[in-house]
């Protein structure tokens, strides 16, 4: 046991500008860093603990998805979209299916629209649950909150497995509908999971929302203003945390979202805390949508009979289709030249574009804050690097 006999030495360099004996410390965070949620690197320059420069380095997971898609048929591109944001394969399928439907003018049957909303909102629930769990983990709350969140997420993944055969690579949607109908008893099982979900939210909120440490770590950290967010193309929960009232489920009303009543939560400060809270509130609204959709789901076909998915050749033209993915605006831009493969296949990745302001958010913050700022953006590298 050692006893300090002298006053402890202040190891933090002085923040005054007249110093001459200090230099910047360059740190390469990543690519193998647990907080980057994948292979992603940030070249950070530090003055003591303060960030003075941050340059993200991308491309570790780049496989040129867009080039691969040019050599595939329209149907063959569908399973590839699972691998973009591998947490939310179903919403990726949906965005791509929507773009093809716009390109070729395809109508989707009622039941398929309901199944899309149900699976899409379940995807949002499990994405947000996973995100808040990971964010807690990034803050140092090791284990417990993440495991609570993953317990709920696993219930939803079980539902996906029962419906599509896969937990994460669902490959569920087709242009013109869905691949398979819900098996017997699936909707009842889903209803149970949805009914039980608010209990988890209550528990999670009681545990963490007004937690003092959480507030101290997140409030006022990584602030993005409303104007900045719009100009930098920030979308999804991150934009709404900055007060941008722009939810594509309300703006575009794609699918059948005009039939459900739900609210769009908005943040005021645009800091990490708002981004965290927004996810919690959005989960409650998703549960509301799910309850309404489960009540109204009709019977009927799940595929448009006039659409053939194999040998599909839309006529020449282009279309941009977008949905409100759990991470933001997920868009697909397709150009057809009349052949069976897309001439151009572009993914608008919300994860990548939401990182545009990463340096702005981190400047002047402590190095430990980089981790939670990045965590609050909600990125998946499969989509960032494509």
């Amino acid at each position, binding site marked *: 046991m050692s006893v300090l006999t002298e006053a402890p030495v202040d190891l933090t360099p002085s923040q005054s500008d007249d110093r001459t004996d200090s230099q910047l410390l360059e740190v390469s965070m990543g690519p193998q860093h647990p907080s980057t949620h994948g292979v992603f690197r940030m070249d950070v320059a530090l003055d003591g603990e303060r960030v003075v420069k941050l340059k993200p380095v991308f491309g570790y997971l780049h496989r040129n998805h867009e080039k691969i898609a040019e050599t595939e048929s329209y149907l063959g591109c569908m399973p590839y979209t699972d691998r973009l944001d591998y947490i939310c394969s179903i919403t990726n399928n949906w965005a791509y299916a929507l773009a093809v439907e*716009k390109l070729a003018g395809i109508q989707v049957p009622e039941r398929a629209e309901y199944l899309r909303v149900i699976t899409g909102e379940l995807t949002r629930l499990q994405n947000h649950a996973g995100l808040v769990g990971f964010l807690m983990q990034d803050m140092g709350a090791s284990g417990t909150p993440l495991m609570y969140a993953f317990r709920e997420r696993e219930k939803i993944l079980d539902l996906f497995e029962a419906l599509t055969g896969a937990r994460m690579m669902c490959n569920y949607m087709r242009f013109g509908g869905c691949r398979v109908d819900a098996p017997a008893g699936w909707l009842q099982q889903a209803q149970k999971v949805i009914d039980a979900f608010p209990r988890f939210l209550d528990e999670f909120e009681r545990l963490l929302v007004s937690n003092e440490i959480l507030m101290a770590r997140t409030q006022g950290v990584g602030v993005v203003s409303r104007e900045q967010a719009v100009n930098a193309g920030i979308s999804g929960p991150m934009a709404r945390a900055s007060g941008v009232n722009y939810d594509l489920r309300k703006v575009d009303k794609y699918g059948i979202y005009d039939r459900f009543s739900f609210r769009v939560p908005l943040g005021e400060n645009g800091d990490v805390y708002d981004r965290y809270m927004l996810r919690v509130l959005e989960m409650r609204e998703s549960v509301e949508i799910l309850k309404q959709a489960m009540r109204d789901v009709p019977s009927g076909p799940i595929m448009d009979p006039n659409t053939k998915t194999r040998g599909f050749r839309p006529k020449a033209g282009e279309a941009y289709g977008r949905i409100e993915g759990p991470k933001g605006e997920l868009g697909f831009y397709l150009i057809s030249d009349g052949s069976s493969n897309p001439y151009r296949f572009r993914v608008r990745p919300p994860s990548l574009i939401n990182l545009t302001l990463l340096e702005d958010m981190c400047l002047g913050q402590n190095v430990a804050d980089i981790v939670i700022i990045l965590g609050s953006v909600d990125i998946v590298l499969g989509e960032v690097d494509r």
Partner: protein
Amino acid sequence: MNLEEIKSEIEANVPGCSLEIIPNGSPSGQHSLLVDPDHAFAVAGFLRDAANLRLDYCSNVTGVDWPAKEVSTKVKTKKVVDGVEQEVDEVLKTQSGGYLEAVYHLFSVEQRQGPVVLRMRTEDRADRVHLPSLTPVWRSADYQEREIFDLFGIIFDGHPDLRRLLMWEGFEDHPMRRDYVDPDDYEYEPTAHDEVLKRAKEHLSAEGGL
């Protein structure tokens, strides 16, 4: 506001710019506006700030490669066949110049309208591939223009930090070009067959025979 109105609005406010509406054959009906690169920056600024448009949200920015291709056009010509003058269809084959294209999908968060699709074209695909960067107008174009520079090779003049985004520094080609050829990165395969055998033969013949 439809695209015709937007076009005349821009023409009235940005003097000297030449615009063209590119029709879209698909049922999506998303026609686009081709802007000449010299005035694109002014047009972009106008679209963002005009009170009745307010296209403040540039969602998607991407590149498209249109290589040169043979275009056959039917022309009616008069010919004397067996002493009688006849009108004969003749197929003229011309080489269309290839170009690279940058496409911007604009929306308005404030007025909830869009998309307005803006296009710019380079003069060719080889050395005159400069386009003005619209990143100073919409910051969301930052990474996306870098990605186009990386994968298509369009050079955006005025971009604050034009570096490769996804490929590594020192990589030379632009993989999203239609005529991109994969590098010969063949690795020895003991039981090569089909595609792999073909590549093995190509690789070994390039090295000086099997």
